[in-house]
């Protein structure tokens, strides 16, 4: 059972991205109206906009939070060909109306010559690193050598993917057995260009990222891509939003200690759903990687879950409607309109575990 709480976002154009912070208590939205808004959750669960500012001179495609260890830091990327890093400063502002927090720009990354379509921080264990990808097919990896100085970023890697990039996702695994790895998706519409998802892996010897895998079966434009939280798994799970939802499993093959090439993966497609009947725009994993949410042009969010046999099924559909925002626009933020958009989710989903295979052990 889900309860929808509609929020008067008051963005002047489309919202392109929503992003929760590490602890799930803050939210950032970005929009074509060139602004980013930060929302904080109050004690009673309402979301309040605590900051809203103009970030770019073009549509802001994505916004993302850094690990809180580095401070309250956001990165945004835009149609204006730049990515920017923002830091929240608390308490120094004299402007009482805007509250105590304000965000200042720490840096602008201007290396791209086309629209920067995605920006992501690398997993924390790699340090403070930022990755951007752009419409001309270049992935750039920046590093802040001094984590206390957010205004200094050096371009560490520039990787050409040949295809116009639309999204990027880091493999979050912190295991030493897994070298740094990211996947990049392309929104190139030309089916004949081959696989639209490429996976790059860091090579210790050459100190470069090299292509480890191309998912040749994904030939349509990819809009979003997300590695599942790893949580101690030996393999990686990748969700892809293209004309349908797909879930891939990448199982690293055993590697001889002598080989220096990239890891070979056994690529399995574990699920493929066209229930959205349209382009799928977003995929997002829950924290235990037991639930996948996807949203498509049908205006619905669908929830996917695997049973113990690794069979993925739809466990819920959330309709984004029922909140007549036009009627609410005059009121303050965060009206809780209780709506009956209920979802059947089994108890198993709550426990994040399914009964079954373990019985085999108990019968011993």
């Amino acid at each position, binding site marked *: *059972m*889900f*309860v*929808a*709480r*509609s929020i008067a*976002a008051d*963005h*002047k*154009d*489309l*919202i*392109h*991205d*929503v992003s*929760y912070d590490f*602890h*799930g*208590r803050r939210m950032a939205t970005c*929009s074509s109206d060139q602004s980013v808004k930060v929302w904080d959750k109050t004690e009673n669960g309402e979301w309040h906009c605590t900051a809203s500012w103009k970030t770019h001179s*073009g*549509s802001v*495609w994505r916004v993302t939070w850094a690990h809180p260890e580095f401070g309250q830091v956001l990165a945004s990327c835009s149609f*204006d*060909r730049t990515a920017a890093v923002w830091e929240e400063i608390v308490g120094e502002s004299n402007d009482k109306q805007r509250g105590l927090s304000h965000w200042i720009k720490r840096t602008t990354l201007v290396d791209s010559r086309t629209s920067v379509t995605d920006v992501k921080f690398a997993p*924390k264990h790699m340090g403070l690193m930022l990755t951007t990808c752009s419409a001309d097919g270049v992935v750039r990896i920046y590093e802040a050598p001094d984590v206390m100085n957010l205004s200094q970023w050096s371009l560490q890697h520039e990787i050409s993917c040949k295809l116009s990039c*639309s999204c990027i996702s880091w493999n979050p*695994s*912190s*295991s030493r*057995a897994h070298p740094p790895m990211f996947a990049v998706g392309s929104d190139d519409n030309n089916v004949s260009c081959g696989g639209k998802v490429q996976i790059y892996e860091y090579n210790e010897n050459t100190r470069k990222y090299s292509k480890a895998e191309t998912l040749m079966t994904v030939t349509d434009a990819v809009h979003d891509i997300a590695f599942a*939280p790893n*949580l*101690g*798994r*030996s393999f990686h799970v990748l969700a892809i939003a293209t004309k349908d939802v797909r879930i891939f499993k990448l199982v690293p093959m055993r590697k001889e200690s002598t080989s220096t090439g990239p890891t070979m993966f056994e690529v399995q497609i574990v699920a493929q759903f066209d229930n959205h009947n349209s382009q799928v725009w*977003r*995929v*997002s994993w829950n*924290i*235990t990687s*037991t639930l996948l949410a*996807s*949203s*498509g*042009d049908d*205006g619905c*969010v669908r929830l996917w879950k695997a049973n*113990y046999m690794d069979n993925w099924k739809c466990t819920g559909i*959330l309709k*984004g409607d029922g909140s007549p*925002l036009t009627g609410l626009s005059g009121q303050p933020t965060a009206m809780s309109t209780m709506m009956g958009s209920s979802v059947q989710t089994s108890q198993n989903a*709550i*426990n*994040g575990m399914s*009964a079954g295979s*373990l019985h085999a*052990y*108990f019968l*011993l």
Partner: protein
Amino acid sequence: MEKMSRVTTALSSNSITGRTMFCHLDAPANAISVCRDATQVVVAGRNIFKIYTLEEEQFVEKLNLRVGRKPSLNFSCADVMWHQMEENLLATAATNGAVVTWNLGKPSRNKQDQLFTEHKRTVNKVCFHPTEVYMLLSGSQDGFMKCFDLRKKESVSTFSGQSESVRDVQFSMKDYFTFAASFENGNVQLWDIRRPDRYERMFTAHTGPVFCCDWHPDDRGWLATGGRDKMVKVWDMTTNRPKEIYCVQTIASVARVKWRPEKKFHLATCSMMVDHNIYVWDVRRPFIPFATFEEHKDVTTGIVWRHQHDPHFLLSGSKDSTLYQHMFKDATRPVDKANPEGLCFGLFGDLAFAAKESLISSDTNRKPYPGGDRRYPIFFFKKPDPTEQFAHVSSALSVFETDLDSNRMDWFVKTAQLYLLSGKPFAELCDHNAKVAQELKRPQVSTTWTMLRIMFSDPANLTAPGLNHNLSKLGPMPLMNSFSIKEIGPGVGTESRLERSKGESRQDNIHLDPGNSHISNNEENEETEGSEGQAEYMFIDAELDDDDLYSMEHDNQAEEQEYTLPQEAFQLRHEIIDNPSAPEHLQQDKADSPHVSGNEAEVTCLTPIESFSLISISQPLYNPHLPASFFCPIVREMLSYYAEQGDVQMAVSVLIVLGERIRKEIDDLTQEHWYMSYIDLLQRFELWNVSNEVIKLSTCSAITCLNQASTTLHINCSNCKRPMSNKGWICDRCHQCASICAVCHHVVKGLFVWCQGCSHGGHLEHIMNWLKSSAHCPAGCGHQCEYT
């Protein structure tokens, strides 16, 4: 009906056909202009001046106006304009300041007609009057505008802007006598052609130069201006003061702006540098271009709509020496690639979802008529105008929250908080954790814990599961007694913490590695009981059966607690949890000064390393029927199963509780990976205490060092305010104990809080209570302390 009629005009004039095409020029173009019937285009530049005919499939060069062996500077053009009434008449603005007219009807090769050399510097712009054949206007870098009558040899009037250089001049479509001029200082002036002495109006349109302006073709008195400030602004000139009605923010300085024919709200722009694209904007939606033409490889210098009533063809010239005809249907639509939705899973299973409103209000828009509405004949079904759809767009943001009762991640937090990972006998831990899982309605996990207890406990323990007192009595009492006198006795007392924890750390350093390696070498030594009662040293311990070792260890712990502080371990755990600030504090305390608080000592006792030394005295009382190692592969598989299912919590908890029983079965990298993942999760949920406990209980060196880094805490003596340099809590200057509570004046043992401003502090509780009622330091020093 206005719209309908416009559609038909567009259709009737749509005799123009063609496709997206281009041709190479010999040199970069500076400007282009098209003749009235849209069949020819003139391209002018520093080294080029040519006329091309627009055929259906290609551009064909018709005439090269740049003639002569050594063309004069008059041929190098900054701007060009084709007269819209007289099809043989062209004007160019030369870079040397000349204004030249060209008559294509001339029989000679050189078509040059008139030459006006009145401007002192480059002429930026020439403009014919839209209806008057002989009237030509020019704007120059020298700050003057001149009006020429082509029947005369000289200019008829000169307009001094008295601002800076003129960048653009445009005759109004609405008023016969009015023209607009834009200047480098950001101003726009309106002039009456009959009154050269003074401008009619002036306003500041942009910060920085205004490079271009364009009157709306539908004579509405709208003027679009573009500047270096990257903005395009639309002004309503009919009001008293020009009013900014739309503002489009582009990504680079705006070099040209041209209203799109037949589309009231559309205009095309191109940029002066950096950006090579041509954008078509709907001014009502100023944030995202309606269409983009991305063909040019260098700066686009001239754009012109091919026909004044046809919105589908755009011509452009560029510094990359190409001339393009763009078909509107081939344009890139950035909005198609723009993601209309945002979706993100929160930590607590809530889902933030932002979507274009037209997508989610599906009841009105989408659902109705996949095959047309039955109620109306199909031809009444009016397809919504795509441009109208484009203009009015907004997103709805909502957060889907799971019901409070079944909040998705509650189980994780509760489990993390309630699980016991150490400090009790093994069987009891299992039972406790099974109960926790049961209460959280996770029967499978609960059963797993029960199974683990059965697998790894000795039968004796099974008779009284979960009963602390019975269990501890089953433990190896005699040896335990002797041991606790030696090691634990002083540890529990509060006087000699210093020595104790020093001892601990020494032991850690010495025995950690050899102990572990030794154990792993002795995997097969299941039944060799080597306990000769050597209490302190691990090398002996390692020869013991690991399983028994471990259960004994916990027995001992329980024993110890029962001796001195019954039940304290349990209660203290909760106390820690209630005070999230505690662990760092304690930890840092520990690193710098050996003053270890009560519960800190407790937890430290529980680290596996310490337990080795306790275990050595244990003596198994029986032989298990099935060796515990029999289960190890199964348990290992089970742990992997849990990990792969995303429940790393279970994997790590079992790993810690089973300890040595299972540790050697799982390779270090995997263990480390599990620990890292679990700790990361705990930190996400801000379960710092649990996270710290897990770090302490882990045996991976990479994990245990996680809470060893940057733990130094510098403090001042509360008495003399000087920094404490040495170990311990006695200040070496004033020889007073520095850890006196400012409220109760007793020495603080346990959680000590102190103010960094005045160096006074005390018991956490006391200080908290004090500062609730008073804003000042309890020590009376007058400092305004703040507890956050």
